[in-house]
């Protein structure tokens, strides 16, 4: 890495099911202003901007240009990145590369979505190949459900294991995260009693769709050190887009893209024993079942070890490796922002600014992004510019 990059500010909106008060640019503006405030910067300090969302959720073409009133892009370098569900983390990585390139010292990365403006499932269905798949693939739920059926059959995982993930994330949101969309504590019994959406996934296993925005400010090393005493250093990044046809992914009991992206990020960062070396994880778990099946892809447990890990309680707030102190995606999902929120939350942890979500002594954190088509991004963030 030629130029070290740290995150110096994070801002997000209070995520809601329908943020009817805000026009899109205003929603973006709230997150941006909060990020600037958190870093004690003004828009004049920002050298460039990168923004992302998923077009068809708001039906606005060239969002980077449209966003100017709220993103601060007036007479500034600005561009748009969009990669589906991973957009938020892709935007985060793009922000990192803007700074790491040495071309821009201080970079504002914005992820946002105003899902209430459209029919989310209908919009997502347009991602499927219009000739081969679109007619029968039912949005994002079907493929994930099919994946868990395969995992349960192979490794003996249960629906209750998934329910534990849901309970963990929802309770974290309820207790620790005032920004989260869903803030209701739930029990395993309530999850098990919730109606099936697509077997074996039930309503309380699913993420919501939310309106919200998140802004993260990246800076090159010497700038970052001048802006804040505790930048959140980016030690490693990995992106992986393996699959193209959704049907290719059904039957996979794991997430190869996550495994590969983690491999890249871990190598860059020097992570060799993820479970021990990470203090916290902010993981893009779009359905509770993924919170069981994907742990091994991150090297957090042995193959088929998801149920053991979840049942052990080690991933709860008082455990060895708290996962999703923010409540994760199950509590908040403004799609274009979601991946960036994971990066932002991870940064807040190592900066010691996570408030009620703070895990004591958090020094090294992993953040992931997930999206169509079973794609993954991984980011390793640390309180020190190098792994100790």
């Amino acid at each position, binding site marked *: 890495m030629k130029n070290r990059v740290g995150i110096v500010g994070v801002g997000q909106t209070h995520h809601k099911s329908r*943020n*009817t*008060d*805000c*026009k*899109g*640019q*205003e929603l973006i*503006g709230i997150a941006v*202003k909060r990020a600037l405030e958190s870093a004690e910067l*003004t*828009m004049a300090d920002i050298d460039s901007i990168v923004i992302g969302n998923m077009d*068809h959720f*708001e*039906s606005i073409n060239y969002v980077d240009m449209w966003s*100017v*009133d*709220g993103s*601060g892009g*007036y007479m500034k370098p600005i561009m748009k990145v969009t990669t589906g569900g991973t957009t938020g983390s892709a935007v985060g990585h793009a922000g990192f590369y803007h700074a790491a390139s040495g071309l821009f010292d201080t970079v504002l990365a914005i992820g946002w979505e*105003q899902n*209430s*403006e*459209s*029919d989310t499932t*209908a*919009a997502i269905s*347009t991602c499927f190949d*219009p*000739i081969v798949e679109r007619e029968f693939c039912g949005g994002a739920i079907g493929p994930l459900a099919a994946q868990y059926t395969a995992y349960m059959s192979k490794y003996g995982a249960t629906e209750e294991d998934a329910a534990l993930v849901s309970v963990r994330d929802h309770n974290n949101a309820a207790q620790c995260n005032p920004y989260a969309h869903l803030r209701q504590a739930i029990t395993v019994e309530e999850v098990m009693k919730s109606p099936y959406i697509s077997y074996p996934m039930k309503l309380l296993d699913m993420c919501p769709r939310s309106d919200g925005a998140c802004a993260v400010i990246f800076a090159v090393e010497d700038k970052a050190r001048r802006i804040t005493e505790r930048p959140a250093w980016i030690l490693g990044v990995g992106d992986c887009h393996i699959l193209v046809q959704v049907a290719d992914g059904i039957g996979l009991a794991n997430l190869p893209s996550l495994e590969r992206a983690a491999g890249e990020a871990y190598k860059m960062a020097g992570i060799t024993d993820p479970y021990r070396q990470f203090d916290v994880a902010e993981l893009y778990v779009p359905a509770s079942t993924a919170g069981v099946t994907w742990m091994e892809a991150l090297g957090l447990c042995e193959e088929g070890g998801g149920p053991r890990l979840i049942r052990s309680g080690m991933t709860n707030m008082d455990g060895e490796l708290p996962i999703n102190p923010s409540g994760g995606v199950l509590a908040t999902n403004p799609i274009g922002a979601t991946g960036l929120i994971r990066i932002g939350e991870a940064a807040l942890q190592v900066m010691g600014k996570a408030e009620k979500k703070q895990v004591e002594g958090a020094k090294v954190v992993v953040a992931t992004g997930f999206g169509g088509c079973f794609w993954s991004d991984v980011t390793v963030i640390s309180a020190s510019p190098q792994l100790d």
Partner: protein
Amino acid sequence: MAVSSEELGNTGTLKYPSRIKLPYTWHAGKAGSRFYREIKDHRKIWGTKCHRCGWVYVPPRETCPRCFLDIDEWVKVGDAGTLLTYTITRYSVPGIQPLEPPYALGIIKLDGASSGLVHLLGEIEPEDIRVGMRVQAVFREAREGNYLDIKYFRPLRS
């Protein structure tokens, strides 16, 4: 049994017509909502003014894009203004046009505003439109709280 592409034949490409039709409900936000309510209820056009650069935005914003500052000073602008530029749309595009072409569009700088407002021009022949002419908003009788509550701008009558 494998065959070569030539043996299989049946070349030639197919096309599948389709349309993406998704429902949307856009939020106007606080500034936009007030802008439209004032037009609907009172036939008055308001903008917001930035206390730093003095720019008066129509439609109004809560943040000045130039200064990136929160602004909250509401300024009533005239419903008459000067035509900055115009065009006549002469092609038809189903589904997106408010009128049958040919129809005229212009950017009008309302008296008191710094921003121009893009809108329709009416009650004028295309060949009579001039940059710099004075125009005035014509409000619809039945208004709904949207952009076309202003029906169009017509030449200002003295």
